[in-house]
C-alpha cells in the first residue's frame, strides 16, 4: 500500500512552491507601485509647470516634458484599480482607444466655442474625458489641423488646462496610494476592498494579466486589424511616433510586476523573465515606431510575431503564475465586446 502511494507521487508533478502572499503584496506595493505613481505625479507637475511658461507646441522643453510624462504614465498604465478609478482619473489622463474619433471632435468644439471651462480648472474636470489628458495633448502638440484651429490664445489656454488637469489627477492618485490604498492592499480586512490576502494578490495578478492583454490585443491588435484589412491609422499615439515605445515601456513595467509576483518561485521567475526578454528583443528588431508596416503582409507578420511572444507570456502567467499564487483570473474592464 505504501509502495502504491510512492508510485503515485512519482508520476505527479512536484507541488508548486506556495507563495508567501503578504510579503509578495507588500514588496510589490513598495517597490513596484509607489515608485511609479510618484514618478507620474512628479512628471505631471513638471509638465504643467513647463506649459505654464510656454504653450508653443514646437517648444523643445514642452515636448520633452510631454515625453517624460507620457512615459511615466505608460509605466503605470497597467495599474488600473483603486485610486486610478476614482472620479475617472485614469480615463481623464489617458482616453484611448478612441474608436469613434471623439478626441479631435471634442477638442475642436472646445476651441471653436471658446469653452468657458478652459479658464476654470474645476469646471474643466467635468469636460468629456475625450478632450482631456495626454492623448488630447498629443493632438494639440502634433496634429496639423488642431495646431491651426481657432485663436492661439484659446489653444494655449487648452494646453494649460489639460496639463494642469493631468498634474492634478497624477497628484491625487499618488496621494490616495500613500494615504490609504497601499495599506488597504497590504492589510486586507472585512471593511476594506480586499477581504483576504488572496483577494489582494488577485488584484495585482489581474493588473498583470490585463496589462499584457491590453498591449497584445489593443496596442498591437488594433493597428493589425485583420490580414485582409490592416489598420495602421489605429496605432496608439502615432501622431508623436510613440506606438512601439508604448509597447516596450509596458512590457518592461509588466515584467517588473511579474517578477515581483513570482518572487517566491525563482524557477518560474526565470522562465517569465526569459519570455519577456524574447518579446522585448522581438520589439527591438521591429524598427517600426508607429506600426506603419502592418499595411504590408510581411510587415504585419513581424508585428504579429511580437503579439505572439506577448501571448506566450500571458500563457505562463495564466497557467503557472496564477496557480502558484493560488488565484484565478477574475473579471476585468476588457471583458465587454
Amino acid at each position, binding site marked *: 500500500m505504501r509502495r502504491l502511494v510512492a508510485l503515485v507521487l512519482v508520476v505527479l508533478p512536484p507541488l508548486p512552491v506556495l507563495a508567501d502572499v503578504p510579503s509578495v503584496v507588500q514588496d510589490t506595493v513598495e517597490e513596484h507601485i509607489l515608485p511609479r505613481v510618484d514618478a507620474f505625479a512628479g512628471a505631471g507637475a513638471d509638465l504643467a509647470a513647463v506649459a505654464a511658461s510656454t504653450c508653443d507646441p514646437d517648444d523643445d522643453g514642452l515636448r520633452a516634458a510631454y515625453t517624460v510624462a507620457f512615459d511615466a504614465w505608460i509605466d503605470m498604465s497597467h495599474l488600473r484599480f483603486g485610486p486610478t478609478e476614482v472620479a*475617472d482619473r485614469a*480615463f*481623464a489622463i489617458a*482616453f484611448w482607444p478612441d*474608436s*469613434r*474619433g*471623439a478626441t479631435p471632435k*471634442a477638442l475642436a468644439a472646445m476651441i471653436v466655442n471658446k469653452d468657458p471651462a478652459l479658464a476654470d480648472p474645476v*469646471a474643466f474636470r*467635468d*469636460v*468629456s*474625458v*475625450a478632450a482631456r489628458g495626454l492623448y488630447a495633448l498629443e493632438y494639440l502638440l502634433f496634429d496639423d489641423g488642431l495646431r491651426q484651429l481657432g485663436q492661439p490664445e484659446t489653444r494655449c489656454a487648452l494646453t494649460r488646462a489639460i496639463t494642469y488637469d493631468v498634474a492634478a489627477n497624477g497628484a491625487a492618485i499618488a496621494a490616495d496610494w500613500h494615504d490609504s490604498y497601499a495599506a488597504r492592499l497590504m492589510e486586507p480586512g472585512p471593511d476594506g*476592498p480586499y*477581504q483576504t490576502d*488572496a*483577494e489582494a494578490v*488577485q488584484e495585482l495578478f*489581474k493588473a498583470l*494579466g*490585463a496589462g499584457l*492583454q491590453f498591449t*497584445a*490585443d489593443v496596442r498591437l491588435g488594433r493597428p493589425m*486589424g*485583420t490580414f*485582409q*484589412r490592416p489598420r495602421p*491609422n*489605429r496605432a496608439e499615439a502615432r501622431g508623436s511616433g510613440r506606438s512601439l515605445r508604448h509597447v516596450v515601456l509596458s512590457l518592461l513595467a509588466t515584467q517588473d510586476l511579474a517578477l515581483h509576483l513570482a518572487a517566491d518561485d525563482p524557477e518560474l521567475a526565470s522562465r517569465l523573465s526569459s519570455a519577456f526578454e524574447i518579446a522585448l528583443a522581438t520589439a527591438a528588431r521591429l524598427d517600426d515606431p508607429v506600426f506603419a508596416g502592418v499595411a504590408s503582409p510581411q510587415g504585419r507578420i513581424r508585428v504579429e510575431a511580437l503579439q*505572439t511572444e506577448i*501571448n*506566450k507570456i*500571458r*500563457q505562463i*502567467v*495564466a*497557467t503557472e503564475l496564477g*496557480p502558484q499564487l493560488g*488565484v*484565478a*483570473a*477574475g*473579471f*476585468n*474592464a*476588457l*471583458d*465587454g*465586446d
Partner: protein
Amino acid sequence: MKSVLLATTLLGFGLSSAAMAATKSDVLTTYADIAEATYADSLAAAKVLQTAIDTLIADPTDANLQAAREAWLAARVPYQQSEVFRFGNAIVDDWEGKVNAWPLDEGLIDYVDSSYGGPSDENDFAALNVIANPQFELSGKAVDARQITPNLLADTLHEADGIEANVATGYHAIEFLLWGQDLNGHGAGAGERPASDYAQGDACTGGNCERRAEYLSAAADLLVSDLEWMTAQWAKDGAGRSAVTADENQGIVAMLTGMGSLSYGEQAGERMRLGLMLNDPEEEHDCFSDNTHNSHYYDGLGIRNVYLGSYTRTDGSELKGASLADLVGDADPELDAEMQAKLDQTMDALGAIKAEADGGFAYDQMLERGNEKGEALIMGGVNALVDQAKTIERVVTGLGLDNIAFEGSDSLDNPGAVFQ
C-alpha cells in the same frame, strides 16, 4: 446522515429551498430552461413586432408607426434579459452581433442629418445610405442592392469592410428605421421619423420610401429567423443546452462568466461609464428610441435571474428551479447573502435610473456635462455593477472553480488559445 438531519432542521425553520441540496446538474437545467424561455419570449415579441411593421408598411399612419414602436419597446424587455447568456456561451457570442450589434454608424442605412458628417477615418461606409443607393462599391466590389433582401443585409452589408459599426441588421437597425436619429442632443425626446417616410407616391418623405419599407421588412424577417434559431439551440438536445450540460463545472463557470463579464466590462464600462465620461448622448445603448434606461434595467435583471434560477415570463408566469443561489448557499451561506444583497443593490440603482427616466428626466440629460444628479444616478448603477462583479469572483472561489479554465470571456479565457 448529517445532511438528512440538517435538511430536517432547516425544513423545521421553513427554509425548504436551502434544504433541497441543489446539484450542479439541476442548476444547469434551470439555466438552460431560463435561456430557452427568455429567447422564446424574445421570439414571440419579435413576431408581434414583425406584424406591426407589416401593418405600418401597408398603411403608414401615425398610429401604426406608434404601434410598431411600442412593439419594438416590448420586444426589448425579454431580449435584454437574455444578454446574460453572452460571454460564457460561444454559441451566443458567435450569433449575438446579428441581432444586437451596437453602436452603429446609421448613415450606412438611411439618410442622416448634415451634422452627422461623412465617411470617417474609422469607417469609409459610415454614410453609404443603402436605401438611397441601389448600386455601390464595397471594398472594391460592385454590389447590386436593387432588391433589399435579408441576404443582402446579413451577408453583404452587415459589418461591411470588417467594421463593427456597420450594423445592418438587428434591433438597433430596426430602431433607427422606426425612430430616426435623435437630434435633441442632451434634451429630452427621441428620434422623430415621420410615418410618411413609409408613404407611397408623392406623400413619401425622406425619399426612397419603398426601399426603406423593403429594408425594414427584411430586417424584421431576419430578427425573427435569428431568434427562432437561437431558441431552438436551448431546446432539448439543442447545441446551447448540450454545451453547458456536457461538463458541469464548465457549465457553472459559463454562468458566472456571463454574469461577471456583462456586469463589469460590458454594462458598467462600455455602456454606462463611457457615455458618461464622454458626455455623449450617442453613446446611449438605445439612443434612437430613448429606451436606454430600460435596456440597462433588464440587463441587470437578467443577471439576477440567472443567480436566483428564476425568470418571470412575458405572460407573467414564473419559471423557477434549482439555482446558483442554492449551490452557493450550501457552500457558504454568508457569501450567498452577500451576492443576493449586491444583486438587489444593482436592481435598486438601475431601478432609480429607470424611475427618473420614466418620470421625464431623460437619460440624454443625465449624460450632460455638469449634470450632477444624472452623474450620481448613472455612477450609482456603475458602482453597483462593479461591486457585484467582485462578489461574483468570490463565488467562483467559493465554489472551488478557480482552477477551471474560463471560456468565452477575453480576460478569463486561457490566453494560450489565442495562438494555438
